């Protein structure tokens, strides 16, 4: 052993101690210590359960907030300037005055932070005050306490539908099996129920990394009983509290997205800095030359305190810094604050839009990212998920094929396809009649109109045949949880989620995205040596529930007594996926009612009324590699081991028994395959159902292996999967189902509109190509006469050969090319040597469908397009599988639909329907972008125009950094007189009305690419600022030249002209005047005069005393102001006139149309659209003959022309 210094040894020992402390957490129950002083409590070291998400405390708010704010570079710049002011030789302002802007900005930000923090504090308080029941040994019962008073080591009782107050260790449940179900939607967004098992044991030490129950999860079992005196202690033992709960531990800093506009803006800020430096150098050089030109020391040169004069070079060096201080406003620091305010206003309007409100779910749009609103106006590519996003993700059973025979369920289809509106109205009426509450949910999905032929088949056969097997498989092979309608789960998640997010308001995105990640790795509860608990019991999470349950459940008598009493209609199914629910409902409709499901058994009621209780031997849960799930049950009558498997058709077909000579099986398989193809063409989601009968020996040998896999510590997932694959062989096909996933409301219209708006819509789905293509046609992503290139692995080699000749130039001639790619091909195309070509091709395609892609591929595609084409991308999805994509895109939109909350939590904007995307992008996106772009340009202009006045004055005051306006007024000018109008402009301006934007989607194109905020517009406005400042300075200069005017009397008209110019300039830019605009602009002017007049009277020490008063009685003042303002604004005015009269940009035309009467306007829009439609038709007709190379391509690739 190498020699170690004693110090190092001690250090190591301490570190080890600490590590052990972390690893193991020894908990002692609080009960024996109840009522003792605090210092005697064994768990006093642990923090209490109070949550504190606030960043600041009242006492230290100011220093902490300041510290936080000085992380921003802009603020540091400002402080630097303020400090520079305290250097005597440099100072341009009185030091105190120079502090004002920074103070105001810091104060504004601090107020905003304080307000946010206060809201967090309030929601914390609300959460901390929630009640929960904690056992008290004094009172021998559970007493109500507040969440924050729960301490480590307490025993907590959580009842059905309660919210879990802390990370808990489950000790006992009312369920005889010691099982409870929790919902973790608040943590990971998964709305399905998860099973948790109680720990058999009282003396428990738990390691810190383990987790059992998480705060905010919903326990739903029956009431947790504690009738048995011995069991009193076996309640929930609190072992992680407040800040130590996993939820809080995962709470990280906010994710910060920077909008494209802001990135451009920063470049322009750099230009401004360069400009500032140029001006300062000119000033400093000018000062030097001016000093040099003097024959001797003049009277007005004031020496330093000690009586000597600085040399010209030194003096001009100082002047450089004075100039920076004087002209600092050129760098619009207040712009950042203003932008934030504007965005808050924009978001306020977005969230309050009635059109983005969904009655059904009572949800408005949620804006989670506060700073990328304007990016909504620049989207060029939309990547959409299919299921749940384009479609409802409410599955409707449509067709099935059993043993090779098709049962089309025509009536069912007709009923569902019928006029949706009428149906809806009908349902709505029912809802009203029944006061909505008692109506069973999902009317449409649960009601399956039976196929008479099939019904006859079932009725006819009483024996266990394939038909019965098929429906049994539907009923059994799933993870649906049955609950009584009366004890229905209460939906608290949505609201609590909102609340939870509020508490983490600064960082909802990151927390939750990290939670999603964490959710995958639910750690196993590791039992320490001291515990009596067997490792096996605790290893069970999710799928391994049955591992030990096998022994216990046989002893347990199922609650047969109660089950039949409940009418089947009252059963309520809660499924992990809508497909499952649809299938279970179908089975129910045919009389195979899933009555109850425990970890160990499934009870099914047969059409005859008899109930069969299947013992569940194992559940092989779904994973995306196998693409199937299986349930292994023991038949109660025949005692056979039966494996029911359900999965994607190709995943099942591969595993079918290869019967030698058994023609029937072969025929069934081929027939079923035929049906499946047919279903897929109709856009149905297909599933194959198969079964396998195992002999006992086979099962037992497999079960041993399974046990090993489940108990394995390393590589467990893989082993479990392998074991599943092992048994899922030689299946016997029962049949197939076709489930329809209906399109959401007005999806085709939305897709069309988005496309017209110049947005490329891609669909990335995990479904198979046929289904995807069909949905593509249904939602008008693909048109009937499109050329659809289907790329799949088989023909990829051809593709590679042909890709040289099929270069985009040729493709270009046909406008309507669509690309369908499957996942494996996509993987190849994403390889470094092909990706450029792929992007090139995809760019020329009208639409692209990627099928069978994994979540990771989705995000890779998004990233590829975003980076290669440098375009703005938006990803929209609703499920956990879209989270990657949502995070990869510039804007992530989550649809709060059926598939939980992960997507919503990772998103920047959460909407409830796909169709909302239309208004969100076309109207709000356009508005936000054009508002913000114009506001920013205006802000640059405003500051430049104002500051340049000072710059021009330097030429007449020897470049001494003097100002002709009092410093206070100068600061007020920016902070008070001219700050509100641009903010209002940024929040409220409307260039084109919403109707117009929706009616003419082309208008959206103006924002794409560079849009209104470009290099060009920036410099035009800067030039304009220079021109206007020249006018505002030199007209008064020539007017007052040689007269007896004093500095401030000269500065007053300048300032006034500047104010009027700036405000009237804004008035020219404002596209729509409302009463608010008028009020604010007039208010600014009034404020200017009131403040300046008051200032001129109040401050005797002000050398400009009474100046404005004196000026205002002089007619010349008005005459000068009038002509200067007119001359200054003339070019901008003419520019707008010419722009509006000569160029015919769509926006201008739309604005013209906007002024028309609504009826005339609609007429116009119609004409416009029909005209455009005609043009499009023509072009597509003309370009039908494809180029030769393309034809080769078509030969080699599979051309789907439908």
């Amino acid at each position, binding site marked *: 052993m190498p020699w170690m210094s004693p110090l190092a040894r001690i250090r190591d020992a301490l570190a080890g101690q600490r590590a052990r402390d972390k690893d193991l957490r020894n908990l002692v129950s609080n009960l024996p210590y109840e009522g003792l002083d605090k210092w005697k409590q064994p768990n006093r070291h642990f923090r209490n359960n109070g949550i504190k998400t606030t960043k600041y405390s009242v006492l230290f708010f100011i220093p902490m907030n300041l510290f936080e704010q000085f992380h921003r570079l802009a603020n540091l710049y400002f402080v630097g300037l303020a400090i520079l002011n305290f250097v005597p030789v440099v100072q341009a302002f009185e030091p105190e005055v120079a502090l004002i802007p920074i103070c105001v900005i810091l104060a504004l930000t601090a107020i905003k932070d304080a307000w946010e923090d206060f809201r967090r504090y309030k929601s914390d308080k609300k959460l901390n005050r929630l009640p929960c029941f904690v056992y008290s040994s004094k009172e021998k019962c559970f007493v109500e306490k507040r969440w924050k008073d729960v301490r480590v080591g307490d025993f907590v009782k959580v009842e059905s539908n309660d919210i879990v107050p802390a990370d808990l260790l489950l000790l006992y449940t009312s369920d005889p099996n010691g099982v409870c179900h929790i919902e973790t939607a608040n943590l990971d967004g998964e709305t399905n129920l998860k099973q948790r098992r109680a720990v058999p044991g009282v003396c428990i030490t738990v390691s810190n990394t383990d987790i059992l129950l998480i705060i905010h999860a919903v326990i739903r079992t029956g009431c947790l009983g504690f009738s048995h005196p011995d069991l009193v202690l076996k309640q929930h033992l609190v072992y992680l509290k407040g800040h130590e709960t996993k939820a809080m531990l995962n709470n990280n800093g906010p994710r910060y997205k920077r909008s494209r506009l802001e990135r451009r803006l920063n470049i322009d800020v750099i230009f401004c800095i360069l400009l500032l430096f140029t001006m300062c150098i000119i000033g400093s050089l000018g000062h030097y030359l001016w000093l040099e030109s003097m024959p001797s020391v003049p009277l*007005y040169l004031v020496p330093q305190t000690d009586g000597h004069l600085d040399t010209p070079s030194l003096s001009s060096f100082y002047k450089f810094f004075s100039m920076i201080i004087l002209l600092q406003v050129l760098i619009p620091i207040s712009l950042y604050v203003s932008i934030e305010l504007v965005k808050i206003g924009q978001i306020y309007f977005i969230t*309050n839009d009635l059109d983005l409100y969904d009655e059904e779910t009572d949800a*408005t749009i949620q804006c989670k990212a506060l700073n990328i609103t304007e990016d909504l106006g620049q989207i060029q590519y939309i990547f959409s998920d299919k299921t749940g996003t384009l479609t409802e993700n409410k599955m409707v059973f449509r067709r099935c094929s059993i043993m090779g025979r098709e049962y089309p369920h025509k009536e069912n289809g007709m009923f569902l396809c019928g006029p949706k509106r009428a149906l809806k109205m009908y349902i709505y009426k029912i809802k009203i009649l029944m006061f909505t509450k008692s109506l069973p949910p*999902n009317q449409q999905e649960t009601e399956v109109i039976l196929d008479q032929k099939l019904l006859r088949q079932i009725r006819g056969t009483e024996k266990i045949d394939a038909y019965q097997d098929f429906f049994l498989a539907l009923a059994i092979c799933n993870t649906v949880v049955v609950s009584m309608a009366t004890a229905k789960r209460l939906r608290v998640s949505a*609201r609590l989620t909102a609340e939870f997010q509020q508490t983490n308001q600064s960082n909802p995105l990151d927390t939750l995205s990290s939670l999603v990640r964490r959710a995958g790795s639910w750690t196993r509860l590791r039992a320490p040596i001291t515990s009596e608990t067997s490792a096996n019991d605790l290893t069970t999470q999710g799928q391994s529930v049955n591992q030990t349950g096998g022994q216990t459940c046989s002893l347990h008598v199922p609650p047969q007594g109660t089950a039949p009493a409940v009418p089947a209609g009252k059963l309520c199914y*809660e499924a992990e996926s809508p497909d499952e629910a649809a299938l279970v409902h179908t089975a129910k409709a045919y009389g195979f009612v899933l009555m109850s499901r425990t970890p160990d058994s499934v009870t099914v009621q047969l059409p005859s009324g008899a109930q069969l209780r299947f013992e569940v031997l194992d559940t092989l849960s779904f994973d995306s590699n196998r693409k199937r799930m299986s349930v292994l049950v023991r038949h109660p009558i025949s005692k056979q081991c039966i494996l029911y498997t359900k999965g994607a058709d190709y995943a099942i077909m591969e595993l079918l028994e290869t019967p030698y000579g058994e023609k029937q099986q072969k025929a069934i398989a081929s027939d079923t395959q035929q049906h499946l193809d047919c279903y897929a063409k109709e856009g149905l989601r297909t599933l194959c159902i198969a079964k396998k009968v195992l002999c006992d020996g086979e099962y037992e040998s497999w079960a041993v292996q399974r046990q090993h896999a489940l108990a394995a510590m390393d590589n467990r997932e893989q082993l479990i999967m392998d074991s599943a694959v092992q048994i899922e062989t030689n299946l016997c096909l029962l049949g197939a189902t076709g489930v329809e996933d209906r399109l959401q409301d007005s999806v085709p219209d939305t897709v069309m509109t988005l496309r017209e708006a110049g947005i490329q819509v891609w669909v990335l789905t995990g479904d198979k190509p046929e289904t995807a293509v069909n949905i593509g046609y249904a939602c008008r992503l693909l048109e009937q006469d499109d050329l659809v290139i289907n790329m799949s692995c088989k023909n990829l080699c051809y593709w590679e050969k042909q890709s040289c000749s099929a270069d985009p130039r040729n493709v270009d001639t046909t406008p309507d090319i669509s690309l369908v790619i499957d996942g494996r091909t996509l993987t190849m195309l994403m390889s470094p040597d092909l990706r450029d070509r792929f992007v090139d091709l995809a760019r020329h395609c009208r639409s692209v469908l990627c099928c069978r892609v994994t979540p990771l591929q989705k995000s890779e595609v998004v990233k590829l397009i975003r980076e290669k084409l440098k375009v703005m991308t938006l990803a929209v999805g609703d499920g956990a599988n879209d989270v990657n994509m949502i995070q990869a895109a510039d804007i992530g939109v989550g649809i709060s639909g059926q598939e939980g909350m992960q997507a919503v939590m990772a998103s920047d904007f959460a909407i409830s329907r796909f169709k909302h995307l239309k208004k969100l992008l076309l109207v709000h996106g356009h508005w936000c972008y054009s508002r913000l772009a114009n506001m920013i340009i205006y802000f640059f202009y405003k500051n430049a125009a104002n500051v340049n006045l000072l710059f021009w004055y330097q030429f007449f005051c020897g470049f001494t950094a003097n100002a002709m306006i009092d410093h206070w007024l100068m600061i007020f000018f920016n902070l008070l007189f001219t700050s509100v109008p641009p903010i209002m402009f940024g929040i409220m301006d409307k260039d084109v009305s919403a109707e117009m934007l929706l009616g003419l989607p082309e208008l959206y194109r103006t924002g794409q690419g560079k849009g209104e905020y470009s290099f060009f517009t920036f410099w035009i406005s800067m030039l304009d600022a220079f021109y206007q400042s020249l006018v505002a300075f030199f007209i008064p200069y020539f007017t007052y030249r040689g007269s007896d005017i004093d500095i401030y009397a000269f500065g007053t008209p300048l300032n006034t002209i500047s104010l009027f110019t700036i405000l009237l300039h804004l008035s*020219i830019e404002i596209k729509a005047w409302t009463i608010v605009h008028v009020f604010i602009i007039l208010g600014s002017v009034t404020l200017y005069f009131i403040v300046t007049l008051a200032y001129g009277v109040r401050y005797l020490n002000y050398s400009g005393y009474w100046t404005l008063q004196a000026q205002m009685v002089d007619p010349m003042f008005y005459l000068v102001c009038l*002509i200067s303002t007119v*001359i200054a604004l003339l070019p901008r005015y003419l520019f707008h006139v010419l722009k509006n009269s000569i160029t015919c940009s769509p926006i201008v035309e739309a604005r013209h149309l906007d002024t028309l009467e609504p009826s005339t306007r609609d007429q116009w829009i119609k004409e416009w659209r029909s005209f455009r439609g005609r043009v499009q038709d023509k072009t597509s007709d003309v370009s039908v003959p494809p180029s030769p190379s393309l034809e080769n391509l078509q030969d080699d690739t599979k051309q789907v022309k439908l």
Partner: protein
Amino acid sequence: MMASSYNAKEEDGHHSGAAGHGGAGAVKSRKPDNTAFKQQRLPAWQPILTAGTVLPAFFVIGLIFIPIGIGLYVTSNNIKEFEIDYTGVDSNSPCYSCARNFSSNSTTPCTCSLNFTLEQPFESNVFMYYGLSNFYQNHRRYVKSRDDSQLNGDLSSLKEPSKECEPYRTSESFPIAPCGAIANSLFNDTLELYYVESNGTRNLVPLVKKGIAWWTDKHVKFRNPSGNSNLTIAFQGTSKPVNWRKPVFELDPLDSENNGFINEDFIVWMRTAALPTFRKLYRIIQKKPSTTPTLPSGRYILTVTYNYPVLSFDGRKRMILSTISWMGGKNPFLGIAYITVGSICFFLGADIPN
């Protein structure tokens, strides 16, 4: 398998119970209010600037501007102004020797006389200005080099002038009153005007020195130190500015209302000029009650007591006589500007639509 709850959606409405603990007991719809403001449907006026709508406005601007311009131009032309440079740069100038031999220490003031002729008589009140060129009264440090509270009669500032006045704050350990560079550089030439009658006699033109400063400056902003009506005592313990020949309480010994800080010449000087070439009101020649013009045409003599050095910074000194109108002094610029802009607008507005 995607995690989801099939029944989730419809149950939102049933929310109560556990969430009720959160205080959201009453189910409140999140439906946004349907108000014009929130829905961004406030009645709005959407002007579109196009040639058709805007050019008439130009026409109107032209119609308004041209008359104003003409009015301004005519008014400016009616103003009579006479200007004479007495710096003495040129060797022919009578003040040449004074300018050359200037020394701030000399006790005997140098005087010089300039002859000039007014071609036209000056009616009504005539304002007499002195003009300085290339004098940067707007130099940053110069402008700040004053103590306004001292000038407002504040006693503590009188004894302890502001630091801004450095290095003209104290002199030989006495505080300077008035302190600062502006006061120190007070213009101290004396100008006298004689009318030479046809018979050769010189009549002194009466110059009024009151009313040349702003009323508010004279009566509010500037005040002598309070406490004693005798200025000599009030200013005791202070020192005169370095460049001054006499202390501030002797600026006008004859009129106590025009002495000390409220001396109008001083106040006028303290209003620092905006531009390096400026004029400052020196005296007013009041209109005579009779019909004779204030300044009849003819020969005049300007006598200058030459105290103020300007050659060090290449400056010029002028004496200006000017009548005055509502628009101030003579300046045709604004009138021309109005006429030009008015014409441009007028033609833009009148021609293009046709």
